[in-house]
């Protein structure tokens, strides 16, 4: 029986066979709550992973894939050198785009240091060209050589020095998210398994009576598996829904910081948490199945 067809089979059910397993009891509450709480936590961990993933992507792109070319030249030659640099960049494989910063942009960049009334045009301030790499990146040494030839005043600054820790930090945050997600999913699996085993242990008498009156293992296991899978699915669905609502209610992320996006799902990422109840149900299905057959085999 494949997981999916088994699962669908289970959800169809058989009203008569169903009644042989008690509907209520502490093990029911335990299974419902465990899968619910763990689904809730899983949604948070997922949000953290996705958010830090976005963050790492943004940093990688914004920092790792951008560099600056600084052109210092007499005012007369400046325009020519800018054009030369842009032309070189256009022909360089691995460069996605390049553009010269406008004077306003440079003024904005420098304002914190020099104040708003910096007489840019009167200063021998170099002009800046922003370079965005493609995913493959360009060869910085080759680019430097060509720049030296075409525009002697141009200096390539590939930000290597200060972009590294940022990217590393983002990656650490992302892996932290995935580690917690893995931890939580592992705990879900273990706890649903233990809850199923403990519920089955509480129902050993039911199993004994059913064996006595001639029920096959398959019949008994099915009844239990169906109950538990449905319970885990219910619990996890509620937990996931609550988790998604909680995340939607979190103070919304503003982009001002630029380097820390909000915790939350963006666009299609809202579909990700929907996998949590499905995974919980599949886990419960296999856990209960294994526990049921193990318990059954221990009885004659």
């Amino acid at each position, binding site marked *: 029986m494949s997981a999916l067809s088994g699962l669908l089979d289970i959800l169809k059910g058989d009203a008569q066979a169903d009644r*042989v397993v*008690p509907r209520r009891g502490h093990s029911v509450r335990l299974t419902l709550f465990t899968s619910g709480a763990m689904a809730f936590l899983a949604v948070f961990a997922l949000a953290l992973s996705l958010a830090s993933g976005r963050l790492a992507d943004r940093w990688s792109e914004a920092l790792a894939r951008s560099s600056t070319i600084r052109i210092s030249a007499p005012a007369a030659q400046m325009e020519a050198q800018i054009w030369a640099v842009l032309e070189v960049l256009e022909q360089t494989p691995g460069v996605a785009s390049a553009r010269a910063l406008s004077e306003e942009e440079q003024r904005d960049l420098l304002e914190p240091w020099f104040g708003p009334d910096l007489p840019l045009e009167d200063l021998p301030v170099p002009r800046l060209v922003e370079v965005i790499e493609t995913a493959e990146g360009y060869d910085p040494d080759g680019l430097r050589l060509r720049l030296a030839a075409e525009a002697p005043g141009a200096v390539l600054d590939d930000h290597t020095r200060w972009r590294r820790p940022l990217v590393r930090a983002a990656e650490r945050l992302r892996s932290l998210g995935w580690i917690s997600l893995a931890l939580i999913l592992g705990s879900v699996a273990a706890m649903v398994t233990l809850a199923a085993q403990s519920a089955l242990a509480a129902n050993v008498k039911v199993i004994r*009576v*059913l*064996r*006595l*009156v*001639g029920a096959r293992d*398959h019949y008994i296991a099915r009844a239990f598996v169906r109950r538990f899978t449905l319970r885990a699915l219910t619990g996890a669905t509620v937990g996931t829904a609550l988790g998604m609502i909680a995340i939607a209610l979190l103070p919304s992320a503003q982009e001002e910081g630029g380097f820390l996006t909000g915790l939350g799902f963006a666009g299609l990422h809202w579909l990700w948490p929907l996998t949590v109840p499905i995974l919980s149900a599949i886990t419960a299905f296999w856990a209960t199945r294994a526990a049921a057959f193990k318990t059954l085999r221990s009885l*004659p």
Partner: protein
Amino acid sequence: MIELQDAAYGYGGGSLLSDINLRLAPGSFHFLTGPSGAGKTTFLKLCYADLHATSGRVTLFDQDTSEMSRDDVAQARQRMGVVHQDCEFLDHLPLSENIALPLTVAGRGGAEQDGNLSELMGWVGLSARADALPPELSGGERQRAALARAVITDPDVILADEPTGNIDWEMSLRLLQLLVELNRMGKTILIATHDLALIRAAKAQVSARVLRIAGGRLQLAGADL
């Protein structure tokens, strides 16, 4: 039906029963006696494949029990009615559903069950308790219910372990009546009991053989029974 050849059994390496030879022919009526702890329950468990003989052979419906798969055992049990010494039920289902459980499990619920069920519950004096949950029953009521559950499927063989231990004499005779009736219809019956009066009452109605477990061996009881 059920045949034991040189069968032996012991718990945990011990030796409780040995050299057991017995053939339960179709339509026969047997009593099994012996002091408490002699091994009556163990013997019955060998018969319904709850235990496997440590040596010798036990044959159930022409199959060696030690070679039966778990599904074969379930299948065989659908053809047998067993009254356990400690009558266990599904505590969350009303009595009537518990008694009909063997039919439900065999997929024979519905129409077939309704007719038999109410008649049977009347016979064992439980009509008024049909909707009670098993924990609400008295000890004797539970034993009667267990017997009803054992015979509801119209099984070929009925094995009963002390079915009247908690039941007053009049009701015991009534239950015996039911078993005698079933035996006359051709069912094979084996009853473990220490109630000698019941055995005497039965022998007045059918030709029953009385077996006795003593010192781990199976013997035919003396003429006094």
